[in-house]
C-alpha cells in the first residue's frame, strides 16, 4: 500500500528519487563548502549528517521498491533520464547518443546502501574525530562531495556518467589524502594517488573508445545486448603470428579472413584488459597498488570510507557491471584472477612487517581487494561483490577502531607518527573496552572465523575458485560473421586457461588466508594485549621497568605532571558507529551463508542482473559435494594463523619474531621496505619520465630560449621600431586614417557593382545570366554577342537567358547604372561543350573551345575570356552535364 504510493510518486521509468539520493550530498557539499566557515561546527555537522542520512533513507526506499518489483528471473531497474549530453560517432554512419541518465538495480541499489549507510556512520564518527580540526567545514564539504561522486559512479547508467563519478571520487580522494597539505609528505601522497589513478583511467578511456567502436553503445543495457560483437578477431601486436609477428601491420597489410594469422585475440580480450587496467588503478591491484598504502596520510575516517569501504571497491563494482564483457574472454578472466591472487599474497606479506597500525590495515585492504578480484576472475561475480559488502563492514570497523586508538594515543602523544606506531601501544583493551570488542569482532571476521561475515564471503571465493569454469565463447564454433562489417571469419579456437589453474588459485589463496589471519592478529595482540608501552614517551615518566628510554627528548615543559593523560575510551559519536559496524561484521554473512545454512539471499538478489554473464560460467563435476571438504582447509587456515599469532605475540611475547628478524635481517628489511616496489618504479618509469623531462628542459634552455626566443624578440623589436614611427600620439592622425578607410568603403558602396551569376545547363544549352541587384540599379544588355549593347536605354531587366548551340561561344555584356548615374560594364564568355559531360576531360574541352573560338573568328580578348571561364569552371566540367550548377563568373567593376 505504501509501496503503491511510492510508485505513483516515483514511476520506474522516471525515477526522480535518484535525484534525491544524488542531490542531498551535493547540496551538503555546496553548503558546507561555500558557507561552512560562517556556519560553525554544529551547523556543518548537522548539514553533512542530514545530507548523507537523507540520501541513505532515499536509498533504502529505492531498495525496498526494487525488492517489490524484482522477480527471480527478471531484474528490476528504475531509470531517471536527465538530458542528452552529447553524440558520439560510431563505427559506421550512426550517432551514439550519450545521456546524463541514472539507474538503480539490484547491484547498484545494494552498493548505494553501503555507500550512504557506511558513509553516514563515518560522517557521524568524523564529527567527533575531526572536532578539533581547523578545516572542519572543508573536511565535511569534501566528504559530502565524495559521497555524491561515488553515487554518480554507482548510479550512472552509462560509462561516461560512471566516468564522471570515477574522476570525482579520484579528485575527492586526492583532496582528502592531502587534507593536511601543510605537511609535504601528505601532499606528495595525494599526488601519487592522483597520478597512479590516471594510468588506470587511461585504460578506462581506451575501453570506452573500443566499446563505441565494436559494440556501438556505452549504456549498460546496450553493452550487454551488443556484447557478442566483441568476438571480432583483432590484432594486438605481437600476438597473432601467421606471418612474422615482428613485421608491423602496415607492411603486412590488414587482417583478413584469408590471412587471419592464427589470431586468437578478440576485441573482448582487448576491452577486458583495458577495463581491468582502469579497475586495477582504482582498486589498487598490481602493478598500480602503490598509491593506496600512501593514501593513509589522510585522516582516518577518510581511510575507512574512501580507501577501504567504498571508492577502492569501485573497480570490483565496474567488473560486475561489465561482467557480460569479461566472460567473453577467458584470457582476461584468468589474468584478473592471477593478478588478484598475486596482489593478495604480496600485500599480505608486506603487512607482516609494518609497525604503523594504518599501514597494516592498508596492505590488508589491498590484499582483500585481491580476493575480490580472484572472485571476479573465476566468474563468481556475485561472491566477489558480496566480499565487497562484508569487507566494507569489517574493514571500515577496523579503520575506525584504529582511528579511535590513534585518537586516544593522540591525546597523550602529540605526534602523528608515534601515535600510530604499534610499538608504542599495547594493553589498550584495559582503556577502551568498546573499541577493543568491536575491533576483535572485525579481526575475527577478516581472519575468517566460521559463521562470521568474512568466513562466508572469503571461503565462498575459495570454493568458487576451485570449482568454477568459464565457458569458451561461441567464436570457436565454425565460421562466424562479423555483424558490423559482414566479414566471414574462419573457425577459431579462443584461448582457454589450463585446467588446474583453479586448483592453484585455491591453494595459494588459502596460503593468503593463513597470512591474513596471522598479520591481523599480530596487529590485534600487539595493540590490545600486553602492557601499555606508551608510558615511556612522555618526558620524565619512569617506566614500570625503571630507567629512561630513548624517547625523553619529547618537547614537554618540565613543570608538567610526570604522568601524561591516560588513553581513554572515545565519545559516543565514535563508539556507536563502531558497534553498528562490528555487529554487521559478525552477522552480515547470514545473507549469503551457503556453507552451513544454505542461505543464498544475496546471490538470488543480484542473479537477474548478472544473468547474462552467469550463463557462461559453469562448475566442475561434483562441485556440490566438495563444499565441506574445501571449507575445512579454510577453517584450518584461520586456526593456524590466529594460533600462530597467539603463540608468537602472547605466549612468547614476540620473541620468535625478534629472533627471526635477527637471523635473516635482509629478508625482514626488504619486506619492511615493501619489497622496494616504489624504488623499482622510481628507478624505471619515473626515472625515464624524469630523463625525458630533463631533455625537454635542455631543449627549452638551449634551443627555445637561446634561438627561437631571440629570433622572435628581434623580429618583434625590429617591427616595433618601424611601427613606432606611425604611432604619433595624435588622436586626429588616427581619426584621419579611420575616415580614409571609411571613405574607401564608401566608394566601394557607391560605385556600381556589375557582378553576374551564370546558371549553366549544358544539356539544353540555356545559359541564364543574372546581374546582382543594388540600390537604384538599372541594366542594359548585349545578348547576341555582337559587341554592341542592344539598346540605348537602361531597363529593369536583371536576367537574360541565352540559347547556345553545340560548341558555340558567345560573349555577353551587361552595363549597370546605379542611383547616382555611375556606370560599369562587365563581359561574360559563355561556351557550350561539344558533347554532354565533356568526357575527354579538361584538356579536351579546352581544345574544343579553342577550335570553336578560332572558327568563330572571335577577337583575342574573347579567347582569353573563354579560357578564364574554363579555368573557373574547370573542376565542374565533367559533371556539368548532369545537373545545372550555379557558377559565379565575373569580377570587379
Amino acid at each position, binding site marked *: 500500500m505504501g509501496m503503491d504510493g511510492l510508485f505513483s510518486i516515483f514511476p520506474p521509468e522516471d525515477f526522480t528519487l535518484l535525484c534525491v539520493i544524488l542531490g542531498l550530498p551535493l547540496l551538503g557539499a555546496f553548503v558546507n563548502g561555500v558557507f561552512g566557515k560562517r556556519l560553525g561546527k554544529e551547523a556543518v555537522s548537522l548539514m553533512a549528517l542530514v545530507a548523507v542520512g537523507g540520501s541513505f533513507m532515499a536509498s533504502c526506499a529505492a531498495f525496498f521498491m526494487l525488492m517489490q518489483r524484482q522477480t527471480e528471473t527478471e531484474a528490476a531497474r528504475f531509470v531517471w533520464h536527465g538530458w542528452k549530453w552529447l553524440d558520439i560517432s560510431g563505427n559506421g554512419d550512426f550517432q551514439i547518443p550519450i545521456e546524463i541518465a541514472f539507474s538503480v538495480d539490484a547491484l547498484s541499489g545494494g552498493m548505494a546502501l553501503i555507500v550512504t549507510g557506511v558513509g553516514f556512520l563515518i560522517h557521524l564518527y568524523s564529527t567527533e574525530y575531526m572536532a578539533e580540526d581547523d578545516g572542519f567545514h572543508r573536511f565535511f564539504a569534501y566528504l559530502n562531495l565524495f559521497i555524491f561522486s561515488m553515487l554518480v559512479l554507482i548510479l550512472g547508467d552509462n560509462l561516461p556518467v560512471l566516468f564522471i563519478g570515477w574522476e570525482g571520487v579520484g579528485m575527492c580522494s586526492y583532496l582528502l589524502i592531502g587534507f593536511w597539505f601543510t605537511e609535504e609528505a601528505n601532499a606528495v601522497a595525494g599526488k601519487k594517488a592522483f597520478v597512479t589513478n590516471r594510468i588506470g583511467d587511461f585504460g578506462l578511456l581506451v575501453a570506452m573508445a573500443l566499446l563505441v567502436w565494436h559494440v556501438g553503445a556505452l549504456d549498460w543495457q546496450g553493452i550487454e545486448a551488443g556484447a557478442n560483437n566483441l568476438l571480432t578477431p583483432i590484432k594486438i601486436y605481437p600476438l597473432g603470428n601467421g606471418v612474422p609477428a615482428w613485421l608491423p601491420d602496415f607492411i603486412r597489410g590488414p587482417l583478413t579472413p584469408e590471412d587471419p594469422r592464427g589470431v586468437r585475440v578478440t576485441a573482448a580480450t582487448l576491452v577486458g584488459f583495458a577495463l581491468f587496467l582502469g579497475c586495477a588503478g582504482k582498486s589498487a591491484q598490481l602493478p598500480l597498488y602503490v598509491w593506496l598504502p600512501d593514501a593513509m596520510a589522510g585522516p582516518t575516517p577518510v581511510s575507512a570510507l574512501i580507501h577501504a569501504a567504498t571508492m577502492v571497491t569501485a573497480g570490483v563494482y565496474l567488473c560486475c557491471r561489465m561482467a557480460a564483457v569479461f566472460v567473453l574472454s577467458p584470457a582476461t578472466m584468468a589474468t584478473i584472477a592471477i593478478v588478484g591472487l598475486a596482489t593478495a599474497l604480496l600485500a599480505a606479506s608486506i603487512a607482516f612487517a609494518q609497525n604503523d597500525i594504518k599501514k597494516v590495515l592498508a596492505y590488508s585492504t589491498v590484499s582483500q581487494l585481491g580476493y575480490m578480484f580472484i572472485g571476479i576472475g573465476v566468474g563468481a561475480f556475485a561472491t566477489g561483490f558480496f566480499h565487497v559488502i562484508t569487507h566494507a563492514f569489517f574493514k571500515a570497523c577496523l579503520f575506525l577502531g584504529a582511528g579511535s586508538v590513534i585518537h586516544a594515543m593522540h591525546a597523550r602523544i602529540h605526534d602523528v607518527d608515534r601515535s600510530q606506531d604499534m610499538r608504542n601501544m599495547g594493553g589498550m583493551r584495559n582503556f577502551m573496552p568498546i573499541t577493543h570488542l568491536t575491533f576483535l569482532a572485525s579481526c575475527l571476521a577478516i581472519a575468517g572465523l566460521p559463521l562470521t561475515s568474512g568466513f562466508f564471503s572469503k571461503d565462498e571465493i575459495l570454493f568458487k575458485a576451485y570449482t568454477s569454469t568459464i565457458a569458451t565463447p561461441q567464436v570457436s564454433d565454425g565460421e562466424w560473421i562479423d555483424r558490423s562489417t559482414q566479414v566471414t571469419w574462419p573457425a577459431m579456437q579462443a584461448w582457454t586457461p589450463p585446467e588446474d589453474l583453479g586448483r592453484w588459485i585455491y591453494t595459494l589463496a588459502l596460503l593468503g588466508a593463513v597470512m591474513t589471519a596471522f598479520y591481523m592478529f599480530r596487529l590485534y595482540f600487539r595493540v590490545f594485549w600486553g602492557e601499555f608501552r606508551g608510558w615511556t614517551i612522555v618526558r620524565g615518566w619512569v617506566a614500570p621497568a625503571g630507567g629512561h628510554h630513548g624517547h625523553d627528548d619529547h618537547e614537554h615543559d618540565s613543570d608538567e605532571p610526570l604522568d601524561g593523560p591516560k588513553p581513554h575510551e572515545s565519545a559516543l559519536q565514535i563508539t556507536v558507529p563502531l558497534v553498528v559496524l562490528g555487529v554487521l561484521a559478525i552477522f552480515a554473512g547470514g545473507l549469503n551463508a551457503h556453507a552451513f545454512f544454505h542461505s543464498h539471499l544475496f546471490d538470488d538478489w543480484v542473479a537477474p542482473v548478472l544473468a547474462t554473464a552467469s550463463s557462461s560460467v559453469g562448475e566442475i563435476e561434483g562441485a556440490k559435494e566438495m563444499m565441506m571438504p574445501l571449507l575445512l582447509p579454510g577453517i584450518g587456515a584461520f586456526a593456524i594463523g590466529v594460533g600462530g599469532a597467539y603463540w608468537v605475540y602472547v605466549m612468547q611475547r614476540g620473541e620468535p619474531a625478534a629472533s627471526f628478524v635477527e637471523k635473516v635481517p635482509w629478508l625482514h628489511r626488504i619486506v619492511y621496505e615493501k619489497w622496494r616496489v616504489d624504488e623499482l618504479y622510481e628507478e624505471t618509469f619515473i626515472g625515464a619520465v624524469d630523463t625525458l623531462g630533463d631533455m625537454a628542459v635542455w631543449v627549452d634552455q638551449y634551443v627555445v630560449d637561446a634561438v627561437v626566443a631571440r629570433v622572435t624578440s628581434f623580429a618583434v623589436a625590429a617591427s616595433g621600431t618601424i*611601427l*613606432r*614611427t*606611425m*604611432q*604619433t*600620439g*595624435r*588622436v*586626429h592622425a588616427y*581619426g*584621419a586614417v579611420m*575616415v580614409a578607410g*571609411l571613405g574607401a568603403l564608401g566608394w566601394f558602396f557607391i560605385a556600381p557593382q556589375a557582378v553576374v551569376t551564370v546558371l549553366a545547363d549544358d544539356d539544353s544549352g540555356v545559359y541564364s545570366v543574372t546581374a546582382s541587384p543594388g*540600390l*537604384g540599379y538599372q541594366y542594359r544588355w548585349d545578348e547576341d554577342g555582337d559587341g554592341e549593347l542592344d539598346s540605348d536605354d537602361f531597363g529593369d531587366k536583371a536576367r537574360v537567358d541565352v540559347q547556345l548551340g553545340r560548341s558555340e561561344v558567345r560573349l555577353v555584356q551587361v552595363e549597370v547604372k546605379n*542611383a547616382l548615374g555611375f556606370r560599369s560594364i562587365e563581359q561574360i564568355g559563355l561556351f557550350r561543350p561539344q558533347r554532354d559531360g565533356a568526357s575527354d576531360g579538361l584538356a579536351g574541352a579546352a581544345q574544343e573551345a579553342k577550335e570553336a573560338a578560332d572558327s568563330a573568328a572571335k577577337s583575342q580578348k574573347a579567347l582569353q575570356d573563354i579560357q578564364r571561364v574554363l579555368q573557373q569552371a574547370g573542376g565542374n566540367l565533367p559533371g556539368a552535364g548532369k545537373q545545372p550548377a550555379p557558377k559565379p563568373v565575373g569580377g570587379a567593376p
Partner: protein
Amino acid sequence: MGALLGNVLEHYVMLAGVLFTIGAVGFLVRRNVLVQLMSIELMLNAVNLAFVAYNRVHGDDMNGHMFVFFIIAVAAAEVAVGLAIVLSFYRLTGSVHSDDADALKG
C-alpha cells in the same frame, strides 16, 4: 521633383551622408575633446537616420528600428564613459585639449 522631396530614400541617405561627414570633419579638425565627442554623436545620429530610412523601404519588418534602438543604448553608455574619461583626463592634465593625450606616443 518637389513632391518627391522627403518621399524617396535617396534624400534621407544624402542627408545622413552630409551629417556624417560634418561629424567626421568635426572630429578630425577640432581639438576640444568635448566637441569631438559631440561630433561622434552626430555621426551616430546620421547612421541612425540611414537605418530608419532604409527600413522604411521594407515596410513589413522593423529590423532597422531594432538596430537604432540598440545604437542609442550603446551611445548613451559611450557618452557616460566618454565624459568620465574627459573628467579624468582633465584632472590629470588640466586641459581638455586632445593633443595633450599623447602618453602612448611611440
